[in-house]
């Protein structure tokens, strides 16, 4: 059994962390078929992945996780720039051909015009409809351009329960009623099926669109949402939201967001398919949140944006 682990991809935030603060003492948080989470003292999670998962912030992707998965929850795992000690065994990390991926948004790119944003929203909507009923996307039948029910099977229990609350939240944001929107988010965070509850993926999309479009109140609004989230949602989701607040997303979401917000020649389909492949309905929920975010932006008035949080 080789004690060298080949690194395929490493997120740049993890790379800097390992370079500056090695070795890191962590506790094994959770093990899945294709991922392992390690918890740092400050509750942040480092995610070890194999090739069946796309890279995430504070993530490191190996060719295979086979040797590492037989490890006890809560056991100590030490990770540093060129090695990891897990289940009592030390492994060397071979990073020589690793890709370093930047989880932040490419904010230096040219943003789309208002018309172009609208067009992007329509394309995204068409894509979601074509994929049929999936997570929160059922709710498209309430707010989309066309009122056609094509492919949208009736709402499930979760969607029925949250629909009105979610739409109120969207209306508040569209009216730039930031304070009220923060309060409303209390009724949304942590709701829905999934390890990252559906509404959290939705919120992550909204928050990252606001940051990507450089909306002045986004940092303040987003950090309030996240402080609300502590205790209201799973630790894995809180971790995801904390990254999203600052515009750091799993790669497929990062690419989808970039497609939506910046000028591009790229084809939506492959990018959206990759996003949809994340989790069970997480990708669809994120896409729906992104769509709503784009609609919110197109309705926000310049003058109102000066308002509440001045």
């Amino acid at each position: 059994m080789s004690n060298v682990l080949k690194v395929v991809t490493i997120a740049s935030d993890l790379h800097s962390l390992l370079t500056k603060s090695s070795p890191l003492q962590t506790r094994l948080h959770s093990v899945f078929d294709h991922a392992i989470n390690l918890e740092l003292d400050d509750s942040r999670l480092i995610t070890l992945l194999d090739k069946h998962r796309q890279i995430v912030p504070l993530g490191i992707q190996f060719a295979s996780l086979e040797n590492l998965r037989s490890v006890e929850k809560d056991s100590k795992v030490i990770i540093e720039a060129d090695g990891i000690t897990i289940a009592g065994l030390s492994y060397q990390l071979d990073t020589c051909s690793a890709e370093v991926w930047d989880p932040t948004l490419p904010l230096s790119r040219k943003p789309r015009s208002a018309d172009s944003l609208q067009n992007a929203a329509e394309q995204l909507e068409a894509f979601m409809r074509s994929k049929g009923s999936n997570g929160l996307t059922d709710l498209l039948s309430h707010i989309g351009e066309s009122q056609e029910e094509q492919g949208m099977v009736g709402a499930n229990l979760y969607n029925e329960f949250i629909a009105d609350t979610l739409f109120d939240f969207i209306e508040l944001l569209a009216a730039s009623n930031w304070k009220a929107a923060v309060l409303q988010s209390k009724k949304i965070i942590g709701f829905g099926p999934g390890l990252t509850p559906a509404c959290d993926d939705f919120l992550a999309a909204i928050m990252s669109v606001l940051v990507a479009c450089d909306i002045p109140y986004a940092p303040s609004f987003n950090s309030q949402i996240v402080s609300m989230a502590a205790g209201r949602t799973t630790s894995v989701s809180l971790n995801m939201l904390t990254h999203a607040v600052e515009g750091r997303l799993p790669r497929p979401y990062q690419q989808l967001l970039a497609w939506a917000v910046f000028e591009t020649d790229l084809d939506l389909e492959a990018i959206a398919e990759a996003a949809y492949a994340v989790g069970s309905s997480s990708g669809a929920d994120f896409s729906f949140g992104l769509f709503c975010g784009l609609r919110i932006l197109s309705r926000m008035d310049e003058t109102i944006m000066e308002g509440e949080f001045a």
Partner: protein
Amino acid sequence: MIKSVIRKNAYYDSVTLMLISRELSKMPGVEEVLAGMATELNLELVENLKMVTPELDGLGPNDFFISAKFDETQTSIEALEKKFFELLNDKKSHSDGQYQPPTLSSALNHLPGANLAQISVPGKYAAAEVEDALDAGLHVMLFSDNVSIEDELRLKQKAVEKGLLMMGPDCGTAIINGVPLCFANAIRHGKIGVVGASGTGTQEVTTQLHKMGGGLSQVIGTGGRDLSEAIGGLMMIQGIEALIADPETEVIVLISKPPSPSVADKIYAIAKSSPKPVVIDFIGGNAEAIRAAGAYPCLSFEDAAAKAVALLKGEKVKDIDGINLPETELEAIIDKAVATLKPDQTDFLGLYTGGTLADEAMKYLGESFPIYSNIPLSPEMAIEHLEGVHGNICLDLGEDQFTQGRPHPMIDPQTRTEFFVSHVDEKTAVLLVDVVLGYGSHEDPAGAVADSVAEIRQRLGKVGKQIVVVASITGTELDPQDLASSTRKLEEQGILVMPSNAQAVRLADRIMQKVLKGV
């Protein structure tokens, strides 16, 4: 009844959670199931649905719960918990644990440098997938059939324009760069290039030339309809041109049912100008026209293979006809076989899994005596209803009428097994079958045939009768099925195993002649 299952501090990935929800709600007697993480709002929903139980008290967001409303006469919380446990331990298994991207575009991201798309999705969706593949610059192997002729033409024109292969629709066999695609055999590498519109015909030619010491450079499939008037031989022509340009290929073999006349002419024109020798097997086609084009016509698939090998070796090109045994030995075999039969056994039965092998049989035998078939030589010999039809019958069991809702008989021997039982009876004298090995085929087609013959011998033995069984094996010692043990299994059941389909057909004919006429 409403009950819950909880797991504290449990992290199940979302796909697993979704699976749990879905599978538990399908269980009989279950009215409603909520499964998820015990966040405040999720618990609020449970309350809203009046499904709260004491176990949910004190749970936090990192705890997992299942809350179920069910009819206690049909199921129990223990049954639900057991199913939950099973689902946790039963990993969603893809073929080898590998990621399966959901679309062509994501597949391209996942396998950069992909150069060929092998498509076998249902016919009505196939054209769209082929279009995307060609747009992405991929060559295409299209196994699907039921693609419209308009789509085939449009897509082949696109492929030709882009210099890409579009092998199909209804293309069962190809070997590119030594890789067998769909139904194809493992053949040694060499200098003979093949362009084939007929799947099992191509398999027979290629396995025969392997037996004769030849080898393959490339085998390009075209799909069954390529040489029709409407399609105009687009892929056959592109394939021939590619082989002419290919430095590895020294001899070219073409295999197809007779093309439409205008298409045949186009092919003769290319053959005439080809710097490399061309062997043309148009299964009963116009031998004179082929010779006039400077190409070599064929009497059978075996003959096509022999001619290609002779050309490669620079030997004299001969017609391979007849049976490769000294006449006295052959007569002894025939006599011995006929001696096992009773005077009232006069029927011939051919049961084929390979379509063009069945064609080869029909072409030859149909000249000899009248045979009913689903691929008849003339309309009045068509089989409409098989029940109650006696006399001489030869069936292509791979045809649509037998494969509705069933796997192809090359993949699953069950269809033919049923015919062995229903159609071999006390009047049957000779049974003729093919056994096709190679990739795509069943793991032990010879074993299936041997078992059926054993059953027949036992059944007929009870009324004091035997039958003569003749077979050939289309395969090589490199194929995944074991050729040697396949041969042995057949011979152990007293089956006369011939070296090629053509020889098996001729032997069956000689035996039937003796049975019918005493000669």
